[in-house]
């Protein structure tokens, strides 16, 4: 991640294990649902899961568009 950002690409790290990302020094972190299921919660119906995925990707776009000065963790929940 840091390597990709060093090359100039804005990047957001979508991950459940936020402390790992924080420790690595990633700048933009967006909380994910879970390790085996980052983009949606399998306990929900497929329809609701598709909605969750959409919301989370939408938030990822917003995070990419946000100017941050230092490491910031974002969340939809």
């Amino acid at each position, binding site marked *: 991640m840091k390597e990709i950002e060093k090359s100039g690409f804005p990047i957001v790290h979508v991950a*459940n*294990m*936020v*402390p*790992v990302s*924080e*420790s*690595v020094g990633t700048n933009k972190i967006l*909380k994910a*649902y*879970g*390790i*085996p299921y980052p983009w949606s919660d399998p306990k929900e119906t497929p329809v609701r899961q598709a909605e969750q995925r959409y919301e989370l990707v939408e938030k990822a776009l917003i995070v990419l568009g946000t100017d941050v000065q230092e490491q910031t963790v974002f969340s939809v929940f």
Partner: protein
Amino acid sequence: MRLDVGNFYVKDINFGDVTQFADGVLTVNAEEAIAALNPEGNLKNVELDVARPGENVRILPIKAAVAPRARADGRAAFPGYTGDMASCGEGELYAIENMSVMAVGKYGGWMEGVVDMSGPGQPLSPYGNILNLCFTAENTDCMIDQGQHANLHYRLGAHLLAEYIGKAVLGQSPEEWITYDTVDISDKKLPRVVMVQLLSTFYDILGFDDLFYGNDCVQFVPTLIHPTEMLDGALCSGSLIPAGQHNSTYDYQNHPMVKKLLGEHGKAIDFAGVILTSIGPTIERKDRAAIRVADIAELLDADGAIYVQTSDGNPDIDFFKCIVALEEKKIKTVGICSESTGRDGTTQPSKVMLDARADAIVSTGNAAEVLELPKMEKVIGDLESIVRDPYPGTWEDSTQFGPSLREDGSVIMDAHSYLNNDGMSGWSDKTCKDF
């Protein structure tokens, strides 16, 4: 709670007509033993073999390792798992020391391990220096061998066999009795110490996590137990963690750190108990576990704690979070863990996250240490599994090391797949240093 363990030291294992233990020699009736470990026929092609220290023998893929135990009061060796639910940690327990019972299968994978009985691999884990009574088998339903291995039948088989073997010493006089007890010594005003053991628990589906009194530890909530419960069969191993960092049931039954703390009870410390905790699959559950552990420790008036890790990777987060939670309650903590410094020693940092508040760590070595193991004349199990199956510590080919299994039968692998190489329960005499 007082547990009296009567130890019998086995010197050799043979096969014969009657299963018995006499003059240090264990004789096993193979047919009976196989029937005992495979009562419902869920395994097929079951064979028994013995691996002795110093022999030119390699064992793999190992799916379970259990120490033979028996209770004089007729209670199951593993209540809730091999027999009816009952309490553990008190009374008389017969133990056959210097051996394990191992389940060896055909297919390897994420959690299966290798042990060499001689050569450079031998000193890496306790199994190289004890007798291992192994059964090799395949699943009757071969569909189970695909995907991730829960190894249910192998694991149960190993525990049933350990229980069957353990009964061979019932009615005899042990060579020695060791008493493990945590009497009330509050008048001595010694520092109160708890041990925290991270269990192999992570999945939300049944079949992979450790078993606590036979109950799958799925969605486990931190739980306080008497130290002697762990030595007496309350905890049985799951099928989750890479072999190098895996606590087999054998490790729980012989837990060096637990024994050390029990030995110091009344002398240097007041051993308040063991808190079992889990690897959270989400940050919320990691936080919940860390908070619960610290709260329980506080309830016990703990002054100090020793946190024993298992695995690495995202469990490193549990490691640091829990230690920080304890330190924030002014409970002085030492953490025991292995590091992942990589196959060439340059991986930094050696844990997936760091927190400088964990200022007292015992490192048990490099989880990714490259091991060069010579060809072994005899293999118990399936040597081809090394390059055929997805062990985390082996590879089909590599530009740097070549294939893990060479044509001459020698092996190059990393410690992730060497059974209990990391010895976090206290076995390990290894550490890591900056070079």
